[in-house]
Structures are given as C-alpha cells and as structure tokens.
C-alpha cells in the first residue's frame, strides 16, 4: 500500500496536507478553521453555526448567489458545516476544476462580507434547521446524552439553541469571525489527482496574507447528572448510554475501539445479536466511538416500542457488564477485518482521504500512513484488549431516555 503523502506549513500557521491518488479523476479539498461551537459564549449557543452560514452569503467580490453559482457551475459538490471545534468548508470536483474553486474558498475564509441584508435569512435558516431536529427523536436523544455526559461547552448542541439564536445580532457574528476564523490552527487538506507543488504555491498565493489571531483556549465547566429523561409523545422510546474512553491520540484508543466494535460494531456484535437477532427488541442498536482531542466517549443507542424499552435497556446494560473477561479471538479478528476493509476503501474516495488526513493532523499533529494505522489494529491481542478492559471497565455511565415514561437504570452507576 504505497501512499504519496505531503505536508507543508505556511508562516502564518496554516497547515497543508495532501495525498496524490493517481487512479482517481476527482479532487477533494477541505478547509477547517478553529471557529467551532465550543467558542459560543454562554447564552449564545448557535453563534458559530450562524457565522459559518453567513460566510457563504457574500465574500470578496461575490454575492451569496454568485458564490453558490460559481461553485456549482464548476461542478463542485460543496458543503459547509460547523462542529464543536471547527468551521469547515469543503468541495469535491473533477480535478481540472480545482483552480476555479480555490479563489472562492479563499474569499469565504478571509473576506466574508457578513452583510446586513443576509443576516435575517441566515438566522431563519438556522432556526428552521433547529426546528427540524426537534422532530428527530434519535438526534434529540443523543443531544441530551452529550449535554449530560460532557462538560460545558463540549456538551452543548453545535447547531445551537433556538432562544439563543433569536437573540443574536450581526455584530456578534462579526466579532466571532474576527476572533476565531483565523490561523493558526487552520488545516487545508487535499486528496485525489493533485499536483502538490502547484497546490502549495496556489495556497501560498491565496492565503499567505491571512493574519493570525491570538488563539482561544476553552475552559471546561462541570458535567451534568448521570441519568436523564426527555418527555416525548411517540410510539417508540429511545435510550442512549455513554461512558468515557481514551481519545484517539492515546494509543490505548485502539484497544477501546476494538472493545466497542465487539460490543456493538457490526451485525455479529454482542448488542446486535442479543438485542435485535435474539429478542427482536429493535430495528437498530449499536455502540460507537466519538473522539475529541483530549477526551472521547463510548455511545450506545437503541429505539424501541415503549413497552419493551425497559427490557432493551436492561439487556444493553447486561452486555456492557459482561464485556470484560469475555472477549474471544474470533471476535477480535472480525473487528480487525472490518477496520482493514474500511481503511483500504478510503482510497477510493478523495473526500474520505481529505477528511481522514485533516482529522489525524488535528488529533495527532501528523498524518499516519494507512500501513501505520493498520499496524495498530494488527498489533491488538485478546490479552491486550482484556488487560485494558480490566483496568478500564465501563463505569460512570450516563443514561438518557426519550419517550412517554422514564426508564429505571438497574445498575450501580459508579460500580
């Protein structure tokens, strides 16, 4: 698995990451700026999301409509989004279109107009999206889980809170963009059929004048209670559980993700087998790994008819308790096989590779080769995963339900 990986750094602190994939016709480029929702001041939840949206609505010489039309005329599949940590602007396109797209992204990031005439429309768009998430029971359950389990501001919804968004003013957005949409900490990742040297000179030309800002450390507050219930009138009750595991940059994260894969990562996982296949309790049940730079969480989720929700929660808790000391070699081999397939198949998508490189740079400060990453999985043994589980059994669980009635958590949460 020979890879052509490149990195470069500009004087103002922008990091450039590249991978040449000569068999692809496409290129994907992604810009990640450290202007995420953790920088929303208390009472202004949704500011980063509104700022990200408003950057698209006029930048440099282009109006809102001209930005979208120029990108789409070049056949760019564009997207814009704000996570807890980053505002991201990305696009995938046929390789020869990259020179048309780059100046537009340079404007979006460095010269957003943040026009008065677009502010109200942008705010209404954010509010519409918030209303839409109210109708998604799984999403609401996971939001409530993060709100209880993680310390503020990490547990706050990245998409915002309606009452806060209603109260925001254009000056709040302008101030936020001036403070946060800046290097250092900006990552530009490109993958696909690229010419690296050309790309570096293009980024230097377009972005070298971007003034660095001061950087903004985030202070974490207290976390919420361990058990919560969200009243919701529907046929199904949703249940979600979380506990703390090592972040991606900790080498122990590979043992943790393997243990989670065995618990709920595929059709042969413990949860899928016991909850769905054996008992028919629900359509979907899974366990997954969500990482930030300094902490990570294990998350389980299931939705089922109200009358069977208690049994579902009981079975999930029993499977979590049963995990330490019970892992088999065949289970670990399946986790390794799934990880290997997923990593190798990333090479068929320029967007997947650009995303993976940017994530690794943010978490590790470098890009791992696929071979290095595979070696982490290949190095896992049953004894190693069990040793990690023995030292770090799932504990201090947070449990959230959403439905007509709260559920009973029949387990010592600090056990």
């Amino acid at each position: 698995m020979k890879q052509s990986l490149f990195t470069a750094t500009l004087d103002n602190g922008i990091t450039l990451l590249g991978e040449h994939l000569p068999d692809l016709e496409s290129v994907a480029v992604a810009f990640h700026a450290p202007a995420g929702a953790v920088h929303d001041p208390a009472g202004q939840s949704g500011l980063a999301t509104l700022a990200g949206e408003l950057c698209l609505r006029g930048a440099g010489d282009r109006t809102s409509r001209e930005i979208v039309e120029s990108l789409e005329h070049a056949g760019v599949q564009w997207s814009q989004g704000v996570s807890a940590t980053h505002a991201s602007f990305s696009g995938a396109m046929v390789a020869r279109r990259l020179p048309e797209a780059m100046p537009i992204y340079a404007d979006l990031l460095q010269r957003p107009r943040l026009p008065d005439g677009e502010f109200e429309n942008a705010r209404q768009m954010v509010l519409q999206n918030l209303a839409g998430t109210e109708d998604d029971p799984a999403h609401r359950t996971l939001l409530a889980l993060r709100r209880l389990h993680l310390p503020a501001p990490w547990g706050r919804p990245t998409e915002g809170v309606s009452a806060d968004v209603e109260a925001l003013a254009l000056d709040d957005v302008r101030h936020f963009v001036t403070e946060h949409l800046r290097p250092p900490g900006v990552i530009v990742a490109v993958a696909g059929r690229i010419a690296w040297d050309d790309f570096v000179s293009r980024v230097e030309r377009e972005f070298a004048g971007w003034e660095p800002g001061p950087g903004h450390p985030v202070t974490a507050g207290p976390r919420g209670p361990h058990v919560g219930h969200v009243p919701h009138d529907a046929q199904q009750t949703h249940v979600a559980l979380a506990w703390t595991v090592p972040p991606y940059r900790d080498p122990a994260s590979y043992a943790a993700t393997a243990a989670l894969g065995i618990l709920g990562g595929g059709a042969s996982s413990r949860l899928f087998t016991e909850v769905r296949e054996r008992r028919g309790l629900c359509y979907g049940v899974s366990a997954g790994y969500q990482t930030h730079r300094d902490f990570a969480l294990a998350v389980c989720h299931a939705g089922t008819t109200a009358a069977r929700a208690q049994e579902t929660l009981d079975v999930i808790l029993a499977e979590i308790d049963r995990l330490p000391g019970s892992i088999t070699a065949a289970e670990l081999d399946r986790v390794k096989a799934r990880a290997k397939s997923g990593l190798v198949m990333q090479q068929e998508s320029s967007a997947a590779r650009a995303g993976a490189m940017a994530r690794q740079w943010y978490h590790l400060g470098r890009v791992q080769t696929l071979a290095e990453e595979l070696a982490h999985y290949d190095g896992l043994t049953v004894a190693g995963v069990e040793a990690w589980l023995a030292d770090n059994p799932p504990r201090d669980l947070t449990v959230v339900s959403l439905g007509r009635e709260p559920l009973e958590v029949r387990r010592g949460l600090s056990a």
Partner: protein
Amino acid sequence: MDFLHERLPNGLDVIAETSAAAVSTSLGFFVQTGARDERGPEHGVSHFLEHMVFKGTPDLSGDEINRRFDALGAAANAFTSEEDTVYYATVLPERQDEALDLLARMMRPALRGADFDTEKLVILEEIRMYDDQPPFGADERCRAAHFGPHPLGRSVLGTVESIGGLPVEAMRDYHRRRYAPGSMVLAAAGAVDFAALVAGARRLCADWEPQAATPRIAPPPPASAGGVTERIVRPAAALAYATRLTPGPSEAHADRFAAKLLATVLGDGSGSRLYWEFVDTGAAEQATLHHQEFLDAGLFLTQLSCDAADADELLDRVRDIYASTARDGISAREFEQARNKLAARVVLAGERPRRRLFEVGGEWAHAGVYRSVVDSLTIVESLTRDDLARVLATWNLAGPAATVIAGPDTAHA
C-alpha cells in the same frame, strides 16, 4: 473499464464492470421483485423476506451469516423497493469468492418459523420507527393517493396489521414464485475476477430450478388521481412535512434523463429555484424536487418542510414557480450549472464500486442495458434546453397533484 456478461443455463444472468483502478469489489444479487408484486394479503412480504434471507439457510444459521460477513470485513446489506430487492456486499478483492459463496447460499433461505416470529417483531419496530420520524407517513400516504389501488401505491414496509397477520407459509410461497433464476441478476463492479465469479455462480446456483423471468402481476398504473389534498395530524411535531406528486416520465421513456436535469434546476438541495426561494431565505427547512422512476410510471416528487402555518401558502408558491418556469423557460446559465453538477456527480460516483454496482446491476435487471460512466456522461452532456422545455410542456408540474401534509395542526382555521 470492461463490461462482461454470461447467462447460466437456468436463466441467471452474471454481469460485471471491471475496473483496474478499484481497490474493492462490490457484488450483489438483484431480484426483480418488490412491493408491487405482492398479492393483497402479502403486503410487506418482499421487505420482510429480505430480512429473513439474513436469518439463515438449512445449513447456515443467521448468527453464522453475520459472523462470516464481519470476518470478511464486508460492508453487507440489502434493500427492498417497489420493484427490486437487492442483496450486496463490498469486500477487498481477495474476499470475492467467500462473499459470493455467502450471498448465493442466502438466496435459498431456510425461512424457519421461529426466526420468522422473532424477525416479525423487528419489522414492526421498523414500521413504528419510521412512523415516529418525518415525514410522519406523508410520503406513503401521498403515493397511495397518487396511484390509488394500484400496488405501486402501497408502502414497502407493509402495515402493523398486514405484517402482524402474515403467516410464514405465505412468505415461502412468495419466495418460490419470485426468486426464480430468470428473475435474478448476479452483478459485480470494481476489482472483479469475472472468471471466478462465473465459476462460483455455476457451482452455487446451478441447482436452482430453471425458470424464466416471473411475470409481474400488476397492470399498468393509472394516470394520477390528481387534485387530492390529505392531512395527517401529529400534535407533537415541530414542523409540517408536505409531499406533492405529479406524473413524470417512466424509466422506459427517452426523457428520463432530461427529467432528472429539470429536477436539478428546479429543486436540487442547493442552488436551485426552490432553494433560493425557500431554503436560502429560511422560509422552509427543506424544499426539493426529485424525479422518481418505475418500469412503467414516473413521478415528480416535491418535498417541503416548514412552519405548519405556512405550508399551504408555500405549496401554492411552489406551484407558481413550476408554472412560471414552464411559461418562461430556463436560462442558459442555470441550465449549464445544473448540467455541470450532474456530470460531476456521475464522475465522482463512478469512483466507488458500490455506487457502480447499483447503477450497473439496476439497469441490467430492469432494461438489459449496460452504460459505462462515459456513456452516462455523454448522455448528460448532450442534453439541451429544448429537452427540458419538452419535459415541461409534456408533464405539467403545476397541474393537479396528490398532496399530503403531516404536521402539528394543518387543518384550515
């Protein structure tokens, strides 16, 4: 890329599009059966059977199938629609034979009574899960309003009543009738070893009783009932969700590609007429137009979500946009923008074997036609504004429609 085809003596078609650049292999069985092929009391059996296929064969348990797919590192799944049931797996090339072995054996499932009873609970949960989510059944109710009693108007999942009352014997009978080798295609895309694929199919599928394609039972669908508006009240919903259907070209129609380009101009998720009017302004959470196609019917599907109080007015404005577009036409600039978008989508999707599998297998199963990525690009790039004008003149998007609105309280005051 090369295209290869071979037909086994029992009627099973084996096809592949091979790509030297791919690092994965996608393969799957395309069974030409779906919700429209169900007889009255069988409502939902196609999709329920798709679940049961994963519950094992006479010599392979459901758990064993799940374990083997995971051990292959396979991304394996299945889906059921009105006209198709598709089982597929994406694996690293060295796992092609094992993935084929598993998929082929699954096509002759055990359909055990105990598994049937347990899986029935899962299907019922799936029905309730979707019923609790947007668009709260508006899409299915609208399809029913459009097609009337024709089977294309029925939900793929079935209902709590139809699934609850379904006996296992009915599923066994349906499987015998519908999973004939002449009604199935084994397709593959990506880094495919075609000789091994054919050899595997001969070994694993040769004893399937020879049978020509099973005729589809449904009569051709009627024209739209039109002019119907129904409402579903969901007191707890935050937004209203509207679905609007008018007729469009079927997949046998020469204008199917022009219809897709027209839908991109009018109602793509970004940069379209509906987007600028409703989404960009924050008037609606979502406002899109899609072209959907079946063997002998087609639809233009409008989906709108917004404040319940605004739904009727916004639907009127959507219709006005369709009417003014038909009257005044489409500018050269927006036509080119949409065409370039579609062309880029064809190229990018062409890089993923799984996307190619659905495209190549689906077209072959329905029409016996193969189109390469280059063929598809040529079609998109040859479309003109006249083609779109013809579609607009032929299919009156602003005309009588079936409309269903689900939301907190959408009744007129």
